């Protein structure tokens, strides 16, 4: 699970083009949206594509993303439970 969380942090930084942020800056329980990293709905759509492309999970309703992307922990839990890749 730890390896997945590290992987997620690195992918998020790459996919969202977060220059000046390193994986060690992101805590597992920090909120990703709103406060914390301050990501927004467009970033959420990017992460939905990431779930599909890298983990084979297809979300059809963008609103589902709100719960899944709350933090690195919630993302890792969801991916572990649902990944097909």
């Amino acid at each position, binding site marked *: 699970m730890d390896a997945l969380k590290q992987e997620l942090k690195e992918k998020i930084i790459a*996919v*969202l*083009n*977060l*220059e*000046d*942020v390193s994986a060690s800056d992101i805590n597992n329980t920090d909120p990703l949206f709103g406060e914390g*990293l*301050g990501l927004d709905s*467009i970033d959420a*759509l*990017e992460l939905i*594509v990431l779930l*599909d*492309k890298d983990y084979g999970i297809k979300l059809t309703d963008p609103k589902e993303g709100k719960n899944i992307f709350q933090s690195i922990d919630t993302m890792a839990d969801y991916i572990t439970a649902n990944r097909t890749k």
Partner: protein
Amino acid sequence: MKTYINGIGCVSAQQTFEGEFAATFATNENLNVLPIVAPPYKDYFSPIAARRMSKAVKNGIVASTIALDEAKLQMPGAIITGTGMGCIEDSDKFLKAIIDNKEEFLTPTSFIQSTHNTVAAQIALGLQCKAYNFTYVNAAVSFESALLDGKLQIEEGEANSVLIGGIEEMTDYTASLFKLAGFIKKDEEGTFPMLGSKTSGTVFGEGAAFFVLENQKSDSTYAEVKDVEINNEIAAEILQLKVFDFLAANNLTVADIDLLVTGINGDAHFSNYYEELTQKQFAGTPQVYYKHLSGEYNTASAFGLYVGANIIRSQQIPGILKSNDQSRPAYKNILLYNQYRGLDHSFTLISQA
């Protein structure tokens, strides 16, 4: 109401975002695509805020910030931009992804960022400016359309202050297309001098130039914008007549024009338009050109206005801009003329405030 330019911000292939006007201007005739001299972006926004920003958005935000600061204006009454090609970096990126990935695994960011009014929208978002917000996308009159609209806002009392800007960005892909199409001079030519060039095509660049227009003079006033006219097509034989009509409508004749600023871009195929003015009735008028410094792009004429406005304020013409050796004791009225590939002609008249 009269229209005054009270603030200017410019990001270009020259160091134009700070320091004395033209102090470090230098020509580089070895390149047919001029790269921008980048401002210190980190001074204007955080890298996280910049995560989605294309060059156009970054340069647009920097240039508009500089213009607003100079005019000491916090909230403009309108934001109007012009761009011929828009945010092509993101547009090219999204299109390439569609083709390479066969329409799968596409992400929205570059699509959203590719819409032409993104720069104007980002500026409004940053300022929380809910006022009138337009973007013009009509090749070489994109900027003049913004200028015309901004001036109309002020004349009709629709706004007291207007932020206008001309933006363009260049990408490797688009440059390769333009070379294929003959818009950019062939690499094989080796050097690319602009004056008197005998080959077709031009030298391209990119940049952003923003202006604050206001209905009152201030201690940062550069010039008054007297009139702007755009025409999609003018036959070369009647170009002079059109110019005379434009001047007459402003109670001026050729003799009253102290400086002619031309969009000469070294494209021999379309230089005849410029020669209709520079070598005929305006032969005795001081003339400057600027695209050897900025490069050509649809909104390069905004750089031209930046040049004209600075000359009027300083009453000096830096040698590197001169395309003839006439001079005048004072520069009261300046006429700017531009066209691109024979279309989208614009006449802009600015005067000492």
